């Protein structure tokens, strides 16, 4: 028997990523890298008008373009019963190709299939569409009037999509009315776009067995398979969805887009493979945008800063179709987390959503379904309240934190926060940033008229959707799954229903298996994204992979271990009850010298299993008992140039508590990336529409993404409060930095400008907005 020393644990190890060798050598395999004999290219004709009747579509000229094989329109699809596509939220449907009228600029109008990429584009340009423009509704407040009804196809002739609310309306109103101090502010979270560097695309092909082989940029391949089966009527076993390497996703690759359906229809109709790869402009103008929430936030407090009530009324702009990818019961996602880290005695949140002539979406952009909006609203409003009460925003937060001993904490808006230690996390932040010294410096600077700001955000996140009793997408419960096979020589494979877009699952999943089974993670292969081989799962978005699939992996590994225990008992010649799993191996209870490693057991499982079932594998479908609630305390320090309005982020410190850390390297990378997107949203990124409904940010020269030059250097820190209900205590981290950081940036800017009387500026905080605010303040004071 082996007496090998205890192998090292795998959790918390900064293991270099296993997937990297292929990416650094240009061997990644993305959708556009796929080529097939006879493959055609698809290009879409898009509407130049935000709202117009389609009088006619003339494809004759396009059909003359050399290389063009076919053109299809909305009418063709409608005739085939494929005119409309259900949206993931299930409250609405979306036109695949426009039927009768277009509802947003760049809407898909016709599909052109050709021998080459260039010929397809030429063909699309030759399609003649005669439009009769209609009045445009470019914002939800105009939509509210119902003067122009955008969606006569719907039963209810109104632009109002839904009203959602949670909490106690009357008690909140009374508490607010009785509060000695009150603030109210309209806080807008602008429309922005995830813009992964790889745009969306697919290759559709019917193989010799008539089976659809569908390669697609999808964060949720199984859900795609089911959705395609429902939409197209193709039996689900005849659909094989493969999501190869993804060049980022951030939520953009969750919905099913019209281009995908067109590619499948083209492949079926023409009998050849079809590739569709959107351009950057198509990506920014037609695929899932995020946010566009106008939030009226009202907080009540006592004169000494105890919170008494919160009310948030949101007007949401959902664009032309309600394509928000939220769970069925949660049309406004997890917006109920808007009470944040604070112990509000009473609260009420409501959301009213409207159709407008803008692109559809409302996806979770690096965010668990509207949590970013909620966190931004409460963290921004807390600063406004602190200003009103003339107390330090840190003190206001501290005074009202949910305390450590209150966990599990039932929030007034219906969540049960699993764990946290907000005080401690904040203390780490204050200490690390040197808050007292900064405050002193600020006083000195202010005396000299210099603008320096310190901004905090002490947020609570809700991720890991979610328990089946509450969460589903298109009726499919939001569990996730893992399947583990250990080979005779002690290596293995784990497959999950999730899909990495850069998060490093090939490494972190192997680490979980390594930890649970005492095997070398270098020899645990991870496979995702292939619906033929992976067990059914809901996919990767909203930081749900680690909380849900990560848990499934740990549980599947424990099943493997239980099976292995039987074989180990046989090998150790004792009863099963006498075998314990200790120091990453099986040993006879009380006799550490008598032990076997998992590697040895694996071999025996195939060669010497005695009466036990041969083989060593298990799967687990994990239905999470609760969500996980990561949290963090962030601080930004900014200096503003009074003359130019330029904001310089001098320091940014993010202290995160994401529970147990699987791989600190990967966690830190996720935080850097999320902070950069938060920074981008705070200062740069906006999809703007003019009053006529024209999209003004259609490519990377107008939709500004931070480069290495403007991106600040990030400082990070951590506290670890494990999730009590997750098998390894992990909570998920990918979206925290993006959820938590925008408020810290904005709070810092407003803090810098507060001596001038500035109370709020909507994101993105561009130089000209700051310059204007400063000039305006000067006018008022002179």
């Amino acid at each position, binding site marked *: 028997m082996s007496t090998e020393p205890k192998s090292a644990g795998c959790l918390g190890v900064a293991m*270099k*990523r296993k*997937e*990297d*060798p*292929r*990416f*650094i*050598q*240009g*061997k*990644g395999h*993305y959708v*556009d*890298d796929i*080529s097939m004999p006879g493959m055609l290219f698809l290009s879409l004709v898009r509407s130049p008008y935000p709202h117009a009747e389609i009088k006619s579509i003339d494809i004759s000229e396009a059909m003359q373009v050399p290389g063009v094989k076919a053109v299809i329109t909305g009418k063709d699809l409608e005739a085939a019963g494929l005119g409309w596509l259900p949206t993931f939220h299930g409250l609405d449907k979306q036109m695949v190709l426009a039927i009768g009228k277009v509802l947003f600029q760049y809407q898909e109008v016709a599909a052109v299939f050709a021998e080459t*990429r*260039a010929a397809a584009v030429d063909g699309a340009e030759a399609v003649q569409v005669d439009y009769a423009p209609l009045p445009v509704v470019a914002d939800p407040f105009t939509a509210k009037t119902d003067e122009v009804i955008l969606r006569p196809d719907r039963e209810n002739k109104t632009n109002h999509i839904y009203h959602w609310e949670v909490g106690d309306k009357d008690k909140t109103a009374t508490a607010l009315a009785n509060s000695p101090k009150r603030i109210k502010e309209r806080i807008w979270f602008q429309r922005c776009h995830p*813009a*992964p*560097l*790889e*745009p969306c695309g697919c290759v559709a092909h019917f193989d010799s067995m008539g089976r659809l082989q569908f390669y697609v940029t999808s964060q949720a391949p199984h859900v795609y398979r089911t959705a395609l089966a429902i939409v197209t009527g193709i039996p689900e076993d005849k659909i094989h969805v493969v999501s190869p*390497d*993804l*060049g*980022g996703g*951030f939520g953009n690759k969750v919905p099913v887009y019209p281009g995908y359906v067109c590619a499948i229809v083209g492949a079926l109709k023409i009998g050849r493979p079809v590739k569709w790869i959107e*351009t*950057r*402009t198509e990506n920014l103008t037609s695929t899932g945008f995020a946010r566009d929430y106008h939030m009226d936030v009202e907080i009540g407090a006592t004169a000494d800063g105890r919170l008494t009530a919160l009310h948030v009324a949101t007007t949401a702009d959902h664009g032309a179709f309600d394509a928000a990818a939220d769970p069925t019961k949660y049309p406004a996602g997890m917006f109920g987390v808007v009470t944040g880290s604070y112990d509000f005695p009473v609260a009420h949140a409501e959301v009213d959503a409207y159709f407008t002539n803008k692109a559809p979406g409302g996806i979770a952009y690096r965010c668990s379904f509207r949590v970013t909006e909620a966190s931004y609203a409460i963290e921004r409003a807390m600063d406004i309240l602190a200003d009103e009460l003339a107390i330090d925003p840190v003190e206001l937060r501290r005074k009202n934190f949910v305390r450590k001993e209150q966990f599990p904490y039932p929030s007034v808006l219906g969540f049960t926060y699993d764990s946290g230690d907000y005080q401690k996390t904040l203390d780490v932040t204050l200490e690390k940033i040197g808050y007292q010294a900064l405050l002193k410096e600020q006083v000195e600077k202010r005396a000299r008229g210099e603008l320096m700001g310190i901004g905090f955000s002490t947020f609570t996140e809700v991720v890991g959707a979610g328990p089946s009793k509450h969460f589903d997408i298109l009726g499919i419960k939001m569990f996730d799954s893992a399947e583990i096979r250990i080979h005779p020589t002690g290596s293995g494979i784990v497959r999950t229903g999730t899909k990495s*877009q*850069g*998060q*490093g699952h090939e490494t972190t999943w192997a680490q979980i298996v390594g930890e649970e089974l005492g095997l070398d993670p270098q020899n645990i292969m991870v496979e995702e994204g292939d619906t033929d081989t992976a067990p059914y799962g809901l996919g990767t978005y909203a930081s749900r992979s680690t909380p849900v699939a990560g848990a499934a992996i740990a549980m599947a590994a424990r099943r493997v271990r239980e099976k292995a225990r039987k074989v180990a008992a046989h090998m150790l010649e004792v009863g099963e009850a006498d075998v314990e799993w200790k120091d990453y191996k099986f040993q006879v209870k009380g006799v550490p010298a008598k032990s076997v490693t998992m590697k040895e057991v694996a071999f025996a499982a195939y060669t010497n299993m005695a009466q036990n079932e041969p083989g060593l594998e298990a799967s687990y479908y994990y239905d999470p008992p609760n969500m996980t609630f990561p949290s963090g305390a962030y601080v930004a320090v900014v200096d503003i140039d009074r003359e130019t309005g330029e904001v310089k982020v001098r320091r940014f410190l993010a202290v995160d508590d994401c529970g147990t850390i699987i791989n600190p*390297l*990967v966690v*830190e*990378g*996720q935080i*850097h*990336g*999320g*902070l*950069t*997107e938060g920074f981008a949203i705070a200062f740069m990124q906006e999809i703007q529409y003019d009053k006529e409904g024209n999209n003004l940010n259609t*490519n*990377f*020269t107008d939709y500004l*993404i931070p*480069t*290495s*030059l403007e*991106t600040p*250097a*990030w400082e990070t820190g951590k506290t670890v409060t494990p999730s009590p209900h997750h098998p390894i205590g992990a909570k998920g981290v990918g979206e925290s930095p993006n959820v938590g950081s925008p408020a810290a940036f904005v709070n810092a800017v407003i803090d810098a400008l507060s001596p001038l009387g500035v109370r709020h500026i909507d994101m993105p905080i561009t130089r000209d907005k700051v310059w204007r605010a400063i000039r305006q303040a000067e006018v008022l004071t002179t």
Partner: protein
Amino acid sequence: MKVNVTVNGVAYEREVEARTLLAYFLREECGLTGTHVGCDTSSCGCCVVVLDSDKAVKSCSMFAAQADGHQVLTVEGLANGGTLHPLQQAFWDQHGLQCGYCTPGMLLTSIILLKHNPNPSESDIREGLAGNLCRCTGYQNIVKAVQQAAGTLGVQV
């Protein structure tokens, strides 16, 4: 038209449309899909390759015909047999990539950056990479990777 380009030391002679961009020539004619395309406005840098060992160019902003008779280095040409190029190794060591989509362009831009400035400061690197977008990493570890390759990681420059 006929175009003759030497890519990673291998000569590719192909008949292409005059409007064929170098990026698509590499990807679709040479089958070298490590060069990526991420935008239509020469903004992202996913497509950067090295021209004539001296210049980092955005291959989406060049016609294949303009590369006729020239030498091109792509990400596939970086490793020497089984040995990674020091920059590749550094990106791996420093966790300088996540989804990997920007990585080839980052690597090739960095090669030229280091060629012209073997001892770059952090701000030299940030300036040198400003034409390459990354949506995943927040750049910090990419900067560190370039510093590692330059031998200046942890050294005050």
